[in-house]
């Protein structure tokens, strides 16, 4: 399916964080198409092409997933994604302000590809996003989506 354009799905309930992330990505010329879901439900809507994203084509090459979100938190979203054979293979990076051991462990247990803590320092944040973006959205070959 359509993964030639490497889309990045950002799932984060904080618009400010989203804005910072996008700024960091564009700062580093990672000009992929970026989709934003504001919570867990919207993220699944996008994947299953329903609700807000009914007609939104395409699938993400990588998902940047926050943990602390209302309704469904990031861990639960991850569980959903990994349980669906269609989306099982999509790389998921937990990008969260939580440094909690249990979040880390749980994420990996459920099959997250990576876990990045949002640094307080913005420069570091920029750096992290740059590395992430370059790796996952450019260097890395995403898996195919089986529909």
């Amino acid at each position: 399916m359509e993964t030639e354009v490497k889309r990045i799905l950002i799932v984060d309930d904080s618009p400010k964080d989203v804005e910072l992330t996008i700024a960091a990505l564009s700062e580093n010329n990672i000009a992929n198409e970026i989709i934003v879901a504001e919570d867990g439900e919207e993220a699944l809507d996008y994947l299953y092409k329903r609700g807000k994203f009914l007609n939104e084509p395409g699938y993400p090459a990588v998902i940047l997933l926050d943990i602390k979100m209302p309704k469904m938190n990031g861990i639960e979203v991850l569980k959903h994604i990994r349980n669906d054979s269609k989306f099982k293979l999509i790389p998921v990076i937990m990008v969260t302000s939580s440094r909690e051991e249990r979040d880390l462990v749980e994420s990996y247990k459920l099959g997250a590809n990576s876990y990045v803590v949002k640094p307080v320092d913005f420069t570091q944040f920029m750096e992290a996003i740059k590395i992430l973006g370059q790796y996952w959205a450019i260097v890395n070959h995403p898996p195919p989506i089986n529909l």
Partner: protein
Amino acid sequence: MNNKDITSEKQAAELDIANIELALQNEEIEELEANSQYARSLIEASLDPLVTINAAGKILDVNEASINVTGVPREKLIGTDFSDYFTEPKKAQEGYLQVFEKGFVADFPLTIKHKKGKLTDVLYNASVYKDDKGNVLGVFAAARDVTEQKWAKDLRIANKELAFQNEEKEKRAAELVIANKELAFQNEEKEKRAAELVIANEELAFQNREKEKRADELSIANKELAFQNKEKEKRAEELFIANQELVIQNREKEKRADELFFANKELAFQNSEKEKRAEELSLANEERRKTNEYLESLIDSASAPIIVWDRNYKITRFNQAFENITGRTEKEVMGESLEILFPPASVDNSMDLIKETLEGEQLEVDEMNIAHIDGSVRIILWNSANIMSSDGKTLIATIAQGNDITQRKQGEEEITKMNINLEQRVIERTFQLESANKELEAFSYSVSHDLRAPLRHIGGFVDLLIKNNSDQLNDSGLRYLNIISESSSEMGNLIDALLTFSRLGRSELQGTKINTKIMVSHVLKTFANELAGRNVEIKTADLPDSWGDENLLNQVWINLISNALKYSRNLDKAIIEIGGKMEDDKAIFYVKDNGVGFDMKYADKLFGVFQRLHKAKDFEGIGIGLANVNRIVIKHSGNCWAESEIDKGATFFFSIPMNNSQ
């Protein structure tokens, strides 16, 4: 006259001369012949063999004697070699050569060999004969037969020998005569001996007969003796047994005597003892009487309840204290059964216990309920002993002493109740504590997440502002923005520190044995960068092993060493000493620096949270490092403390007990 005629006349003259000469010669010849005939007869008459030999050694002429002695006829002899007829031809040649040489030879011995073999010993006398001119014509040799002379010589020698032999023989004969005389004498003697021997043999034979007789007698005697000996042996055996018996008897007698002796001694001793005992007894009796009086008064006045009962469990003694706890008097209870003392509820149990004590002499300690006439019950710690007769066989009475533990029992009950209460409360508190911890955890979690987000935003957008809009800002504006950015960073650090601090307190100790040396060396490695850029000497002394949570203790070392480095960084040369020792059951460690030190006046603030003893502009820091150290060490049931002098450095100590386990 002619020549012929002259010659003839000469011849005739010559003839006549010749005839005259001839006649003369014939006369001479006749004379010569007559002479030679005479000579010849002499020669032939000689008995000695005569011979003439020419210069070549050949025989010219021989006489009859020569023919006889050689056995060879004349015609065969003449012309042959002279030496052929000798046993030693060479010697013969030598002989006639000697004659030619010397002119003569005398008594030359040779031996002539007859043709038939007979030998003749001769002595030759020979000489040369010459013609009238003096020329040697040959040798004339005469042999003298000395055979007989030789024989005579030999015979003489033999006779001498024989004479000598005869002398010897006569000497031997003389000796033989002597010997024979001797032998005859010996034989006489021998005969005498023989005669004596015969007598002796007769005697011997007689002796032997006698000996036989004696032998017979002896054998009879021996038989008799053997018989006697057997009898003697029998008697000896009997005697031996009898003696042994006697010895035993004697021993027994001695034993009896000894025993008797000892018995007597013993008896004497016993008697003296008895007298002593009697004395003692009377003293003892007196003593006893006094003691009894004393005891009676003791028992009476004792604060502990004392009771005596007899074999039938009837009370025989009852002291004042007992009166008090029962509300009965001695007079009332005397002769009554023990049962009256016990509350109805427990009387059977108590009596059973008391009966048990009768079995042995042991002291029994038991709790008994004693009833007061007012209805209350006292709890008495009952302690009894049997009083036995002096032979230890008969029970006279039993005495019991009590200990009023009623109060104590009540106290114990209360304590038990309190303990239960306490435990209950501990459980409740623990539960509360755990809940509180959980709350705190949730709180920390929220804080860590929720507080960070706005910080990130502040920092992030400020940085974007600085990046993207710096041209619209003046220096002062930029400076303000930077301050805002730094501040939000700082706040992030504070939040982190707080979170760590709180987490430390809540975490559980995972205790293991810690190789401190290795831990410290690893920690020092992490500071490698900072150390490289400075002149720092690190002295690591002995570091004993400790026990505790590896991660937490690691943090302690990091914090202390980090501080040591930080507060000594103004020195040209920093010296940091790290060491430890075991004391009792604890491992005590220290980190010492020669840096800026602190004022001991504020020492008690050292380990407080966010507490600092230096200005932030001098030494950056939150004031959480030591607070963490303290928290961790206390969690390990240890202690932290420090010593310092301003500008001379500081030493931070911490102790970790070895046997802590949580």
